[in-house]
């Protein structure tokens, strides 16, 4: 019996010692169980909200990414279209020796330019007429002017406002190809088409 009571006493003593050795801490543990639960709940709610926000943010980012990708894709497509339109617009036409009439095989190229100018009402262009080196230097300025005017007249007669088209003659002063044979000459007898304004977002016809 005595040993049991001693054990109890030891046990009590140990409990007291244990209690004493925990300092002030065990006291709040035992005195604030309700507060602790509320904080825990708050934490849980916060964490859920945070997770939700994170999911929302990711969703938004994804949406933005998709949207921006879509924009980029569409810009790229537009740019591709613009490049294509610009290339079609810049395609040169060519002339026979000492002639300024539009050749049959160039009418298609001019028809495409008509369509592009109709689809892009702000677009303005300059047509530059050029000659090969065989004619007289100064006469070629008049001939180059005729060549530029021929293309302009074609566009105007197909419904393009004449005010959107400037013309210019370079005579034989700006050969595209250096050379003194028919291959070079035939390439140099040409009209060039350049955009002077409204060429930023060209639409396909």
């Amino acid at each position: 019996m005595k040993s049991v009571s001693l054990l109890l006493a030891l046990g009590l003593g140990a409990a007291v010692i244990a209690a004493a050795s925990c300092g002030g801490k065990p006291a709040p543990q035992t005195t604030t169980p309700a507060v602790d639960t509320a904080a825990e709940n708050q934490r849980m709610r916060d964490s859920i909200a945070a997770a939700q926000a994170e999911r929302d943010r990711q969703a938004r980012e994804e949406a933005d990414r998709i949207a921006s990708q879509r924009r980029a894709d569409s810009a790229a497509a537009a740019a591709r279209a613009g490049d294509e339109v610009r290339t079609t617009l810049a395609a040169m036409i060519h002339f026979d020796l000492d002639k300024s009439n539009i050749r049959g095989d160039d009418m298609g190229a001019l028809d495409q330019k008509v369509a592009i100018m109709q689809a892009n009402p702000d677009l303005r262009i300059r047509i530059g007429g050029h000659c090969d080196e065989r004619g007289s230097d100064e006469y070629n300025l008049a001939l180059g002017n005729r060549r530029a005017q021929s293309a302009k007249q074609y566009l105007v007669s197909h419904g393009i406002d004449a005010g959107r088209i400037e013309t210019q003659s370079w005579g034989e002063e700006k050969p595209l190809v250096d050379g003194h044979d028919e291959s070079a000459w035939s390439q140099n007898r040409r009209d060039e088409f350049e955009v002077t304004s409204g060429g930023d977002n060209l639409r396909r016809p």
Partner: protein
Amino acid sequence: MAVAVLSIVPSFHLSAQDTSAIDRGVRIGIVYRPGVRPGLVMLPRKGMGLDSVRAMVARDLDYSDRFEVITLPGGDSIRLATSPTSPRATGTRRSGSTTAATGGAQAGSTLNYPLYQALGADFALDITAAGDTTIATLHDIAAAGIRRTVRANLPRPGDPDFRMAVHRLADQALQAAIGTPGIAATRVLFVREGKVYQIDEDGADQKLVSSTDRQAMSPAWGADGRHFAYMEFQAGKGWLYLQEMATGRRTAVSTTGTALDFTPAFSPDGQTLAFSRATEEGTDLYTINIKANCCLRRLTVGRFSDNLSPTFSPDGQRIAFVSTRPGLPQIYVMAADGTDQQLFAPFDYGVTGASNAPEWSPDGQSVAFHRDVAGTLQVFVLDVRTRTVRQLTSVGRNEDPTWAPDSRHLAFVSDRSGYRQLWIIDLDTGRIRPLLQQSGARLPAWSPRLSEAPSTTP
């Protein structure tokens, strides 16, 4: 034997005559008249610091194509007086010949005239110095006396005005001999790689006169030789500018910049500039008063044809120009107010090639132009009175002729040497010489006679 060491220069040049390819029944228009040119001997002198002056004057007189220039070796290599071989030289004046021939003429002393007459000389030119004055003494051999003495205070060699002053001395000597002014004191403007350059008529002193990096074309001289006009590409248009030779100062012609204006040409009185303007309607001729900066006037209404490249007659009454009204460009003429337009240089419809680049000669008698012959260009001359044309060139491609003030020399572009460069032809002798040895030179414009600048500072 003394004669044997002489070289009679022009005999070598006759081989340069443009005489090939007379195969299409076309008369090549050189009229060579042998023997009509007077012989001229440049007296050799040693020292006196005038060697470069003598060399330049001798070359100028040679390039004038007015003389058979007889070149004597300088110095003591010959003793002309010791034993004249020609019977004509064994005349009355042998006694005075020693001093004359070995040292040339002393001022006031006589030459061995019979000797020089035996050499074929009609004139002897002696250039000496007295202090700062250079003295050119022209001896008339047949008259056995001094024809004229010209004195000049030349700038020092190296001075920018030196060469032109020597050229003027040569021109004065030429005028003393034959009574007509020379062309040594002239320059040629031309275009190379889009820039305007000037070069002296003897091929020296090439200078850039373009003042911008923009591409330029078609320089044209004012009749006073102090201004020139030219065209410059700018912002899709052709602008006409007037520029002072002395200062380089340039001004845009009023009303230019709205279209493609090109091929300017001054009226002889300097009041008017005629030019071509390319618009939607094609190319037409206009004039503007450049003194009053007003009064733009349209001279032609081409509609379906182009009119371009005007050139005034020296009396200012008429303008020759190019018109495409017959289909291919041909040479037309009209009154300076645009009335009375008519064909000028005859052509065979469907046969004759395109004709371009007319320039009226300073004496009014001829219009030079170029015409397509069998796919290449050749220089032609129209006789204004008879309205007949003759072909001047036949070797290679020859184009854009421009008259010297003597109306007998033309500068033009030719690829006869393998590349396009400037050449000068004398219409009387057919003698041809290159003006410069650089490829790509074109659109030459020969100046009037260049008098001395009115003031030394601009």
